[in-house]
């Protein structure tokens, strides 16, 4: 399971190979160019690189795919971040009058990080994750993906494993890219239920009426809760975690539950007792009493870093960037296989580089059977690169990325036709 085959010290040796032969530049460019519908969309995009020894270079920008390729192969960034589309080329930001250089558009992004769940997971803490707590990410993706599609009407959502302990979402619809700061923060707050820092015990409070978003989210949480919270995390097992849960119920109920828990050890039964109490309370109280739902949400509902979503100019780690600590590639996730997605199965840079070397031996033999004339074409280099990643375990992620791009290409095709029509009219 652990990525013990990856040694961070080898990164300087592996990165050149990765950027020369494996990084999917053409798809990457196809994505960020958005069909060329808007002029300078790719050219005015900010990239920022983290180089060796944490040297951080902001406001990089590139005029073409070739330019991007060349620079990345030259600089071999440890980490790539994507920023906004600016009013001017970011690499010339010093040459324009201050104040006129402004971030105009960016995908609406979400960042979910496992460290934000530290108070409700007992298996790991901080940067560590395991298959137990990964369920939290699955829940988060399901809830947010539904809400962004059904409530907000967005269609082109790219979910990406961050490479270590979280996931990112890039909402790529044109309407999303054009959202104002206020609109972004409103969307993020609409989606945020868990509020408060270390000084707040009860972080979810529900009021009547319960909004459809919460109802929909609860059905997701209820599906995972018994397995994830009661068994895997065992939140009603150990004494301290039981107390934590009981800290979230009203005082009178707490006393009664404490007593009844003494004769009842099984987490499922304990949970049933809590639910029973909630039902009883609901029958008698005038105001809404939803503490059992509040507990479930506090333990499982997605926790967003609102600040990342809010800013148009906020940078976020790029897909297909390498995580320097784990060596894992930041790969797009296919939600069809979400429940079986295993972060530990995501390839590391050392793994795919090795695969590339290993398969070369076999490749030579294959080649003799292959038609030779194809080899001689001038586009051979490009083709070789495509074939290169196809020989590694990166292939399936790039394939999924391609599918995603095909989907979004439909939208810009429509846009291009409309634009051309307009031109003809005048």
């Amino acid at each position: 399971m652990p990525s013990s085959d990856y040694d961070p010290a080898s990164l300087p040796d592996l990165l050149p190979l990765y950027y020369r032969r494996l990084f999917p530049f053409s798809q990457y460019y196809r994505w960020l160019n958005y069909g060329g519908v808007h002029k300078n969309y790719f050219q005015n995009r900010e990239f920022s690189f983290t180089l060796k020894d944490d040297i951080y270079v902001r406001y990089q920008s590139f005029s073409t795919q070739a330019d991007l390729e060349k620079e990345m192969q030259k600089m071999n960034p440890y980490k790539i971040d994507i920023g906004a589309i600016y009013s001017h080329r970011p690499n010339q930001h010093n040459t324009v009058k201050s104040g006129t250089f402004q971030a105009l558009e960016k995908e609406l992004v979400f960042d979910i990080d496992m460290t934000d769940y530290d108070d409700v997971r007992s298996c790991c803490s901080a940067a560590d994750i395991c298959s137990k707590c990964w369920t939290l990410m699955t829940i988060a993706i399901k809830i947010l993906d539904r809400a962004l599609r059904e409530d907000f009407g967005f269609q082109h959502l790219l979910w990406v494993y961050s490479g270590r302990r979280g996931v990112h979402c890039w909402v790529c619809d044109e309407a999303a890219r054009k959202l104002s700061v206020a609109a972004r923060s409103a969307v993020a707050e609409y989606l945020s239920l868990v509020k408060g820092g270390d000084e707040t015990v009860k972080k979810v409070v529900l009021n009547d009426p319960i909004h459809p978003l919460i109802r929909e989210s609860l059905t997701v949480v209820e599906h995972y809760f018994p397995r994830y919270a009661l068994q895997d995390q065992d939140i009603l097992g150990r004494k301290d975690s039981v107390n934590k849960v009981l800290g979230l119920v009203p005082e009178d109920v707490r006393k009664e539950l404490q007593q009844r828990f003494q004769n009842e050890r099984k987490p499922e039964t304990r949970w049933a007792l809590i639910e029973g109490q909630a039902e009883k309370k609901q029958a008698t109280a005038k105001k809404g009493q939803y503490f059992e739902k509040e507990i479930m949400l506090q333990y499982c509902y997605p926790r967003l870093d609102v600040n990342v979503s809010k800013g148009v100019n906020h940078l976020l780690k790029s897909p297909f960037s390498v995580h320097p600590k784990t060596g894992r590639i930041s790969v797009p996730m296919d939600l069809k296989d979400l429940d079986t997605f295993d972060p530990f199965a995501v390839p590391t840079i050392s793994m795919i580089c090795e695969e590339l070397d290993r398969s070369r031996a076999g490749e030579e033999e294959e080649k003799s059977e292959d038609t030779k004339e194809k080899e001689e074409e001038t586009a051979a280099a490009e083709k070789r690169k495509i074939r290169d990643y196809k020989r590694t375990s990166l292939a399936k992620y790039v394939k999924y990325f391609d599918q995603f791009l095909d989907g979004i290409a439909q939208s810009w095709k429509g846009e291009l036709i409309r634009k051309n029509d307009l031109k003809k009219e005048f």
Partner: protein
Amino acid sequence: MSGCTVLQNERPHMTLGILFRVPLKRHHLPAFVEQPTLFGGTERKRDHCRLQTGTMQFSGRKRRIITNSQTEVYGHTVQFYGQPPLENISLSEFETFAVERLKLLKTVENLGVSHVKLSEPYTQKLEKEFKALNFPYRPENEDRKSQTGPSEQEKRRKDHISHFILRLAYCQTEDLRRWFIQQEVDLFRFRFHILHSKQKLELLHRNNLEYDAISAEEKTTLREKLINSSYGVSGITLEEQDFYKVPFQDALDLVRTRKVYLKAGYAYIPHQDIVTIVLNDFRTRLSKALALTARSLPAVQSDERLQPLLNHLSHAYVGQDYSIQKNVGKISLEQIDPLSGKSFPLCMRQLHQSLRENHHLRHGGRMQYGLFLKGIGLSLEQALQFWRSEFIRGKVDADKFDKQYAYSIRHMFGKEGKRTDYTPYSCMKVILSNAPSQGDHHGCPFRHSDPELLKQKLQFYKVSPSGISQILELVKGMHYQLACQKYFELTHNIEDASFSLNHPNQYFIESQKVLNGGKEIKRETDTPQRSQDKSAARGSREATANAPQALAEMTEDLDFFFQDA
């Protein structure tokens, strides 16, 4: 500023038309005012003194139709401020209007912090302020000319003109714009709120704001969801209520608070919440207008009578900002621990404590605490030493600190990046922006702590039980700053603090005053900010040596007012 002349007259006037170059392209505005251009409209009124700028004199459009009969322009108590005022007004009126509106906006801001917006006490207090300052708010008195004060029309004129004057003062930076828009929107919300529903419709109609209601069938299909997403809509009222379907971007306040049903990017807004869309529209228009005003500002600033006034108006909103300190470096690092117990407000005490315990603070905490420390007099070198010595006791080694954290501390002191000398956060900022999340210790303990935890903490700090219940009562009423002030009074053993608390650094200074027997921090005789203000006022007075004496007096009044506030 060569070629700029002020024609002398015993009553100096401003020609407002030349100040506001707001394109009036919006289709819903009455078409009787042609787009005012810079210096247009000055020609007709030769009887009035006006401003002329040398070479550009009369270069604007000469023909202009003026039909602003007052009833047309001020047909309603609540205005959208679509068209700028064009008349001539005396300089002293100009100043009075500006200052009084600023007072009004300040009141709006203060009430918004200490009360629930639109609650009973909020409306009452705000109404009082409207009356006192002669701004219009209730349409009833429209025709009834009150015996004592100015007529409704005069009030509306004042409302109109003063709004536009402040646009000039508040269009210059992002921060100013944000503050101004926020207060104006709240002001608008209040006035819209107290209108009768018929008047509301009339206002919307007048401004061409009409929205499409969904069909009865759609309402039936979405019945359950509509009821569950809107407060105060039940099965019975649903039948009678219209719902409007608008892009969610037009109803952000409802989206943010989850008070509306969303489907496929559209928000379904019950009639009772229509104010949200109206406000949103108001906000958007104002924001655009401010951006345009900012662009034409250089022309306005060339008027030497206005520049100091506008600058002063715009500096007034923050009150003291505690950024420049004479006592830099006069606090030693050893003093911080004892001071944190005696003179730090609870928010900073909490941050200090968790820094000492965890040897780390997350970004929000570093900003809030770091700037506070800077405000009480830590120098950059001390700050670096302070944070480093604490961080390296935790998981961060010295090398990592220098790489990852030292930058942000130098940044705070304006030594990196865009070199802004950041000012310490005010209570308002701490309470309203960037609420703490998992792992954070910043924010306002009175606002962001569970009452139970707050109680424990206060007990731990040996606040008396009766004091604690008083504080918790204030917290319950959302009077966080008053709760903090109560905490100050209890921990300093004074009956009634003679100040109104709105800044953590103010808390510190006041605390030092009490502890050092009526004096400020030993080596200080005067609060640094006040002296700074004075010198600023002096500066502006020198700059305007030729300007009417009234201006100097006015800015002094303003000083007084905002020192007070």
